[in-house]
């Protein structure tokens, strides 16, 4: 167990290092020059060159990379144009947003988490619930409806669903407030009101896989000997389904859930754009468009970190849920 964990963590570090190098190289392939973006109208080449020098963009690339990584672990001095000393973990200073990247993230990360975590809970409950219902009521209208519902969700685009829901619930019926983010600590009701459409659209699209999988697993488990035995022994229906069948069905779903959660965190850009909410995704897209290196590096690293973390957690959960699987 401990050996497995150490091995996983070492590979994770290796993965994150590789991701950071790739992200760094990618930046230099971008067409946008971060410096010209800073003076839109009347900058001359010589001045731009001085700004570039000041920002360290003329240093050799490996040195720039090492400087950035050094900042994360021990902090560094960024110079007066970039807000001076930047303590570890220093993600750099965004000359596009005029603020330290860590400040940007302190702001946008809660937004993205607020979108993804409740949505994931809904899509898991909805997906597994529908799947179990249709397995238990196999062949009935209810089965068809839940399968049809989840397939419809899987066949639609988020920006389409989101736009229709907003038009109906926000602008026509005036039932919901305009989508937006309020901190949960400030006003939990407003927090939920502003995000509820995003949660449900995401859940509608993501739940299909779980419905499909939990239905199939449930059917398979129900036909297995131990379930039949349990039923024959006279165990109550609910207990059999709850303890045995669901437990077996849930194992592969944990895997997908982990991956989905990780990927949703890294890729909420479409959700955020559709609902006009500014989180990790939009920040990343704008950073790429404007050639904002520190912000690109930080978004790529943070989303990669979540994915790698999700993978490790899934492995551990896997072992916890299913005793047949041994880690090694």
């Amino acid at each position: 167990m401990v050996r497995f964990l150490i091995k996983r963590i070492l590979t994770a570090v290796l993965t994150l290092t590789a991701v950071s190098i790739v992200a760094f190289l990618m930046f230099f392939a971008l067409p946008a020059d971060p410096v010209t973006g800073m003076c839109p109208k009347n900058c001359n080449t010589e001045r731009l060159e001085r700004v570039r020098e000041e920002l360290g963009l003329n240093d050799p690339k490996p040195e720039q990379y090492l400087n950035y990584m050094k900042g994360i672990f021990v902090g560094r001095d960024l110079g007066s144009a970039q807000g001076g000393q930047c303590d570890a973990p220093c993600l750099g200073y965004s000359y596009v947003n005029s603020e330290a990247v860590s400040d940007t993230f302190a702001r946008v990360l809660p937004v993205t988490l607020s979108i993804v975590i409740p949505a994931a809970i809904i899509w898991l409950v909805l997906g597994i619930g529908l799947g179990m219902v249709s397995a238990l009521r196999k062949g009935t209208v209810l089965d068809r409806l839940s399968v049809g519902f989840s397939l419809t969700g899987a066949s639609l685009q988020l920006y389409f669903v989101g736009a229709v829901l907003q038009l109906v619930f926000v602008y026509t019926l005036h039932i919901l407030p305009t989508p937006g983010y309020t901190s949960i600590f400030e006003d939990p009701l407003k927090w939920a009101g502003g995000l509820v459409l995003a949660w449900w659209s995401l859940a509608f699209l993501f739940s299909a896989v779980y419905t499909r999988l939990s239905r199939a697993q449930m059917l398979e488990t129900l036909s297995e000997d131990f379930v039949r035995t349990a039923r024959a022994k006279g165990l109550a229906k609910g207990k059999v389904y709850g303890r045995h069948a669901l437990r077996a069905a849930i194992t592969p779903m944990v895997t997908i859930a982990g991956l989905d959660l990780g990927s949703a965190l890294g890729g909420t850009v479409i959700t955020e754009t559709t609902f006009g909410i500014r989180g990790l995704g939009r920040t990343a897209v704008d950073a790429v468009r404007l050639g904002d290196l520190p912000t690109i590096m930080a978004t790529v690293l943070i989303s990669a970190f979540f994915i790698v973390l999700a993978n490790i957690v899934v492995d551990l959960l896997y072992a916890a849920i299913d005793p047949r699987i041994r880690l090694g």
Partner: protein
Amino acid sequence: MSLSPVDDAALAEAGPRTPGDAVPEATAKEFVGRSPGQLAWARLRRDRTAIISGVTVVLFLVIALAAPLIERLYGVGPYQQFQDQLDGAGMPLGYAGGVSGEHWFGLEPQLGRDIFIRLVYGIRTSLFIAFAAAIITAGTGIVLGVVAGYLGGWVDAVIGWVIDFTLALPYLIFALAVVPTVALRFYGPRDNPPDWFKMVVIIGIFAAFGWTATARLVRGQVISLREREFVEAARASGAGLLHMAFRQLLPNIWAPILVSFSLALPAYITSEAALSFLGVGMVDPTPDFGAMIFKSIDFMQTDPAYLFFPGVAIFVLVFAFNLFGDALRDALDPKSSR
């Protein structure tokens, strides 16, 4: 949305690191004299949903292939503009977004191009990208999956790490960074890359990020087969890697691969539309499904007909693919039959 364009589709088949559940050859024992393929085909033919969705998919394929012919019969090209039929705000005059005998699905607002013929060509672009991406990713995934699963050891470890690494890269951010710049490397400042080049770039992005799920699936299946008697027998008689892969392993795992392939197709159509949403998919003037629906969403309130036709078409196409993939799985894996 998803990190890799098609993760879920293949993962729904078999979770990663779950050695061989749902191995279909078990079914072959039930009836003597009929291959699993024949069995599946028989089951598929009895499934009404499968027939309807299959026919729909074929219909779309025919439309895509016959696009130039349809253009000739219809008499309007995908690039022709009819701005004289637009009002001062650039909106089509007449009923339902300018629907008429001449323009069956009406006109696009602003540029005034014919929606029907652009839809026909859009299906062609989108299906081409989806098929190409699905074939390439399935191929890469199978090769790497077989190699990793069969050879095991450090090869497996390296491939496993590359999969983890690929999954950890945020694919949308990379698409966003790479797509606009690739053309700059291959074409001079006065040449615009042709449509096929842009398609190749998008297919390339999908190929780079989409193979991991198939690779994991195949690897898991291969590991479960590795210790079987027939495989050991073949190995003992000195069969090479190629022989093992093509003669012994693949024939036994094609069913889940086929299902994951069929579910990857609609996933790529949707992903391509998502790229358009971020402005890195196929772009004007090339007719493209994703770009079309993305643009028409803005006009939901002012020209619903513009959203209606491409919206219904892409929904029906993706839905039909999903249904068909589902039916295919049911046919190939009777354990999950309804």
